[in-house]
């Protein structure tokens, strides 16, 4: 009977075709790139893929590392979170990659995390995130809350004299956590609960009229008010548009954003936004030769004279160089060797300083505050005197203030509780 044959054939073909190409080439160092090229996140992630390809190309032109070339393996998790886990497994189990650079959203990271740990891979995660995580196998080259949110709030408080706060964010874990931290932090600084307004909106929210007018009303109470925005991606354009049109001007109510970079601005008419703020660890407008060179490379690679660079790209730049250094230091691309070697490695960042990998797998970064200009760039108005080390566990959350992370022997624990002196659940899980 024909179904019989067909289905049998189908299934065998399937089984075979998958198992056949699971024979991995040994010689080059295989670099997995796990960024969405389609779906909603493609907007942000596809440029990171190109950044990685550019960096790899450059490294190979310089002779690779340890005499081995680097070979990129690109897959498309299509902004689909379970697919991220599946693709991570594919990269590690099937393509036998030595390291993965990827992910943008928290949920995609959470989804691949168990896979990476199970198959003992390496993941470099380039985006600012909510913290509250420290994995033996993941290196966080983006900012933790204490490398972005807290300094930004300090700036507003001390330099602008803000007394009234609107914490507006998209309803997912990064803004939730960041705002929880900020709330505690502000209250510790003596801000009254009545002077804090918290608002959450869904992804891609486009109808901001009511919220913006609420913010306006909230800001009209006589005290200096600022908006701390953790609004994500697509929702920003209509948000800023509405701000502009309702005549909220940076001079009265400045908005400081943690998720709006050059790339997002490239999709916004920045005319009405001049003076609004963003906090990052890198701006394209930073005045350093390393940065200018990077921009030149990027423009050359992307073949677009107006191509912009942004913070996650710098994070990949740092992460990639750290990996290369670690491989050199370890003399092999073996995961465990690299994992040990990379702690303490320092490489130049694009803002003219150095980034060092901390024992908690976070890196040191300077914090910059920039004001939006009419040319879609930020002009740096303030920066931390020295670099800040990323803090995996926030000191402002009851659950985690006692936790520290240190992946050096002998402690070797992602969530060591300094009070009870025990290593939390993760180690137990590993022990299982």
């Amino acid at each position, binding site marked *: 009977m024909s179904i019989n044959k067909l289905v049998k054939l189908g299934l065998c073909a399937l089984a075979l075709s998958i198992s056949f190409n699971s024979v991995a080439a040994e010689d080059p160092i295989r670099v997995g790139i796990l960024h969405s090229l389609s779906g909603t996140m493609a907007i942000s992630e596809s440029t990171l893929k190109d950044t990685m390809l550019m960096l790899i190309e450059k490294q190979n032109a310089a002779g690779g590392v340890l005499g081995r070339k680097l070979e990129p393996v690109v897959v498309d998790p299509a902004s689909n979170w379970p697919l991220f886990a599946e693709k991570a497994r594919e990269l590690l189990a099937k393509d036998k990659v030595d390291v993965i650079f990827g992910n943008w959203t928290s949920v995609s990271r959470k989804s691949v995390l168990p896979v990476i740990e199970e198959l003992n891979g390496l993941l470099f995660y380039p985006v600012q995130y909510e913290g509250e995580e420290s994995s033996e196998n993941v290196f966080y080259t983006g900012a933790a809350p204490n490398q972005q949110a807290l300094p930004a709030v300090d700036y507003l408080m001390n330099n602008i004299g803000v007394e009234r706060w609107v914490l507006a964010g998209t309803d997912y874990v990064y803004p939730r956590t960041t705002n929880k931290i900020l709330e505690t932090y502000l209250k510790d600084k003596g801000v009254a609960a009545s002077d804090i307004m918290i608002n959450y909106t869904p992804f891609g929210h486009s109808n901001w009229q009511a919220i913006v007018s609420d913010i306006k009303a909230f800001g009209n109470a006589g005290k200096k008010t600022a908006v701390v925005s953790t609004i994500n991606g697509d929702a920003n354009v209509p948000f800023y548009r509405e701000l502009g*049109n309702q005549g909220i001007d940076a001079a009265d109510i400045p908005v400081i954003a943690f998720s709006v970079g050059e790339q997002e601005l490239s999709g916004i008419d920045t005319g009405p936004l001049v*003076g609004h703020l963003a906090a990052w660890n890198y701006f394209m407008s930073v005045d350093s030769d390393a940065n200018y060179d990077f921009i030149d490379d990027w423009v050359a690679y992307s073949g677009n004279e107006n191509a912009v660079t942004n913070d996650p790209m710098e994070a990949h730049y740092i992460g990639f160089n750290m990996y290369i250094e670690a491989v050199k230091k370890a003399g092999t691309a073996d995961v465990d060797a690299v994992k040990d070697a990379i702690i303490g490695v320092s490489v130049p960042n694009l803002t003219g300083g150095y980034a060092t990998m901390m024992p908690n797998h976070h890196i040191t970064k300077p914090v910059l505050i920039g004001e939006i200009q009419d040319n879609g*760039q930020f002009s740096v108005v303030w920066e931390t005197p020295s670099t800040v080390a990323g803090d995996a566990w926030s000191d402002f959350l009851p659950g985690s203030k006692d936790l520290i992370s240190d992946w050096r022997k002998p402690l070797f624990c992602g969530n060591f509780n300094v009070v009870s002196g025990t290593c939390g659940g993760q180690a137990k899980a590993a022990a299982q």
Partner: protein
Amino acid sequence: MGISRLLSHLLCACLLCYAGFSQAQVEDTEAQKLLTALAESSFAQKKAVVNQIAESGDERARGWLESFSSNKLARVESSGQFIIVLENRGRDWTVESALTGENLGDMSRRDIDTVRVNNALRNEIEGILSVIDLKSPDEANRLSAARALKGSVEGTLAERLPELIDAEQSMSVQAALTEALAIFNVEEQGDVAAVATLAGSLNSQARAALQQAMRSDNAELAAAATDAMASIEQKLKLNRAAETLYFGLSLGSVLMLAAIGLAITFGVMGVINMAHGELIMLGAYTTWGMQQLLPGQPGLALILSIPAGFLVSALAGIAIERTVIQHLKGRPLETLLATFGVSLILQQLVRTVISPLNRTVITPDWMSGSVMINEALSLTLNRLYVIGFALVVFAGLMLIMRKTRLGLEVRAVTQNRAMARSMGIKATRVDILTFALGSGVAGLAGVALSQITNVGPNLGQSYIIDSFMVVVFGGVGSLWGTLLAGMTLGTINQLLEPWAGAVLAKIMVLVFIILFIQKRPRGLFPQKGRAAEG
């Protein structure tokens, strides 16, 4: 603010400027010194320097301050020569000398150090310029300057204000200045008489002043302030309500605009066009394309992209109809699947051909900002235009449906395809035209949306479901239904939002629709015809 300290110098200086006199040339070394100070001192010190520059009375001062506050004042790293940046996009910037004003051509970003500015300084400069503007011959300038003064008046200025007020001809400017003065008097002097002036004022600074007065230990003042506030609160409530209504209508018109094309294709042909959202997207991208073709005239581009957007989407619609839908006659549910495939293709097409990134669509000046009804209620212009546009489109469609041959044939086909055929109406032709019309309208929606939200590959997805809800709620194929449904849902949503929050409001609306469909399975305005048979 240092305003007061400067005021005297400024006023006379500007009098002179406006009178057209050129005053004694300051030595350029002087200017160079000032600017260097500006460039090298810390933000704190810069404030003082800014004031010096203003005081210097140099006629280029205004230019310097303006370019400084807009981040255009810079210095050449090598020579230390000061320049004003004319074009600061890309890696090479066009610049001119700050002192002589001669054009120095292009310069690499690497060699340029911009003189850093921040909001605090911007305020300062704004203040200074506004005081200058109080003497400007242009009334609009004076008015905005006067408004800007509210809450930022200080001693010396306060003394001079009365004479300015008398000198002022324009009523509105006078009023603004008086209020500014009153605010000052209430805040600083605790002047009870001034409270009367503020009663009924909707200005936020005025309110702040009154609130402060209410807390004051001067019983009389507190009392006066309290009733003044009471009357204000009343007004505010009304304005708030009006605002919410406006928000509702504008959201409604957006929904209606997005849905009405669907109401046509869906209602008349029973085609469930999942690619409708992408047709909207095409319209939006057309606007972007137009603005690329006509750099510098966003307004003109926008107007031109109305017909263009219609055409593009209409053509795309025809293509879809010919290639896909005509093969699926009488299988409405299958059209849903096929067009879903089409929508995937279109999205990815935009991603690969244009870019996965959002595109900038500039809002022309006449559409940005808002019309101020009063100081507590102002209607955002872009949405005002969208409401108008939506109504025009609706009226247009009504005309087409009611008054033209096509409309007649369309209605005939909707009522009874076979009968219409037998009466010699070319049903296929009608189908093509109808679908083109519906798609074209989607394109128009796209043009409008480009002024409100992202222009990116996901634009369509975010509106398709809402559109379907509106159509179903309104009654498939009934234009009035769509209009009413759009407006109702929009308003309900906005009414719920304040106390339910954006997400819950949306959920509630969806649930409401689901339940409503149980009560009236055919929507607000049920309609007989093929679509109605589902």
